[in-house]
């Protein structure tokens, strides 16, 4: 029987949370089609069967090859393409992360199939000449596009953070099938050669609080109070594109469509006007607090909470109040 095949994302065996979103999206699609769901772990291990099963996968295909031990877009994409040819699944799903989009595009290019990135919704189409009706995001999420797909094997990535991962009520263990792809050294030419690990600590991706600054901060030096607040609460500093374009902060701090998509418990936007390209990077935050002199700023109207005032005065006052309460 045909299945929906879900690509698990992992780094050297450590499963990414994005995989759980893909499994949840894949399960929804499998339900619509009345078929089962299988997971694929490229270079992964049978140890992932537990997680796959608890999200509803009946089978996990462990794709095993020496060239898959570390990440490589071509080795992973070629292996996925070979598995897709072997299984002929009803659909192939991943989450639209850097790796998710890259592996799917590599596989789709090799299979000469369409690949649609950053989908929100997929259903079989009732329209003549179309097999699938999709809704996907454009402009990083500020516009939606309704798309028709003529492929019988849709290869879709779901927009990251758009699906809320949910395990099934009565989880089982996924059955393990091993698949050995035919790879040669040329497929491994783009494998990761080396890694430079960042010093341990919180990052934009893992922080519970992000203290983010925009054009309103005014200079590189003026970020000092934001850094102090972030350090006090165990968070990190983020910023808008205007800030990196002015050279006040490194691009690695940039939140937004062309920077990092973040999802902290609280996003504190200081002096950020809230252009849509910034908002799409911050909108997955559980709560947003805007500090801005302009009560009409987009960031203020979109935020859950706002303080109207000068960030240069408000931010140090917050740090002082926390330290005062801590005694």
């Amino acid at each position, binding site marked *: 029987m045909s299945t929906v095949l879900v690509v698990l994302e992992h780094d050297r065996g450590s499963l990414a949370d994005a995989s759980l979103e893909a499994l949840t999206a894949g399960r929804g699609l499998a339900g619509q089609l009345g078929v089962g769901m299988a997971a694929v772990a490229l270079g992964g291990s049978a140890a992932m069967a537990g997680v796959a099963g608890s999200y509803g996968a009946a089978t996990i295909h462990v794709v095993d090859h020496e060239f898959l031990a570390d990440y490589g877009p*071509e080795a992973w994409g070629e292996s996925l393409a070979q598995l897709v040819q072997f299984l002929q699944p009803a659909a192939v799903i991943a989450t639209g992360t850097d790796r998710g989009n*890259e592996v799917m595009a*590599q596989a789709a290019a090799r299979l000469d199939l369409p690949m649609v990135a950053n989908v929100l919704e997929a259903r079989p189409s009732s329209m003549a000449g179309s097999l699938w009706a999709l809704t996907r995001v454009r402009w990083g999420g*500020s516009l939606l596009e309704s798309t028709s797909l003529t492929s019988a094997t849709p290869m879709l990535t779901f927009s990251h953070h758009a699906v809320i991962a949910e395990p099934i009520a009565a989880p089982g263990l996924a059955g393990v099938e091993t698949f050995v792809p035919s790879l040669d050294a040329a497929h491994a030419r783009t494998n990761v050669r080396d890694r430079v690990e960042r010093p341990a600590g919180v990052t934009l991706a893992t922080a519970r609080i992000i203290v983010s600054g925009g054009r309103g901060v005014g200079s590189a030096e003026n970020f000092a109070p934001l850094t102090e607040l972030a350090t006090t609460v165990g968070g990190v500093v983020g910023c808008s594109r205007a800030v990196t374009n002015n050279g006040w902060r490194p691009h690695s701090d940039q939140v937004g469509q062309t920077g990092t998509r973040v999802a902290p418990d609280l996003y504190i936007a200081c002096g950020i006007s809230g252009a849509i390209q910034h908002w799409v990077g911050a909108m997955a935050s559980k709560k947003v607090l805007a500090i801005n002199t302009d009560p009409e700023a987009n960031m203020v109207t979109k935020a859950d*909470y706002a303080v*109207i005032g000068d960030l240069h005065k*408000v931010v140090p006052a917050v740090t002082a*109040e926390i330290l005062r309460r801590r005694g």
Partner: protein
Amino acid sequence: MRTAVCVKRVPAPGARINISADGQSIDTTHLAFTTSPHEECAVEEALRLTEKHGGDVTVFTLGAGAADEQLRYGLSLGAQHAVLLPTDGTDWDPQRTAAALADAIREREARDGQFDLILFGNESADSGGFQVGIRVANALGRACVNGIKGIDIADGIATARRESDVGLEVYELAMPAVLGVKEGINLPRYPTLKGRLSSKKADVDVVTPAGVAGGQIALRLLPAAEQVSETVILGHGPDAAPAIVDLLEELGLLS
């Protein structure tokens, strides 16, 4: 060293995008256009690599005839050659776009020699398909890595760095190779007045693209659901600090 950069003309980031009445396209009446941000950085990177290692830069674009503006912008910054693949202005699907670009690159290489490096943006700012560069690389049989934020060239090897959740990943690609770069790899320069003037008179080669439509057909654009939020105003100025700290405590963020 010969470098090609493929760019896309898109409305300037930050602009409010309105959808046309028929939902088939965006209303461009009041929009300024620019080069998609990742690709602006790709052009800059190509120029920097050329300044360091010699050679030349060719900028390609597929799009409406007006995309001539983005090619001339590349020329004004210092690129030597530009190739326009004009379409009717509709957004071509990724398979068709990639096939047309691969053909144009092959044709150019047959005439002038191989490109050692072909740079793309990681994804276009508007349609965000995340695949054209990968498909072109696949069609040309070349190694490709996306998401690149640092490139060094030595002895025929492109060493490319990409950010990951835990740090940096380093890739080593024997050239010819294809890389998809991300904003942040550099801070793009502005054109000089002299560059602007000479780019107006420069030649832009026009190659009419063919290509068969792929399987993905955009039907309609829709506004994203506006996130409606009842904003709670916690106060005004530094006097609001206790209310903010109360909120942090309430959210369990000060433990």
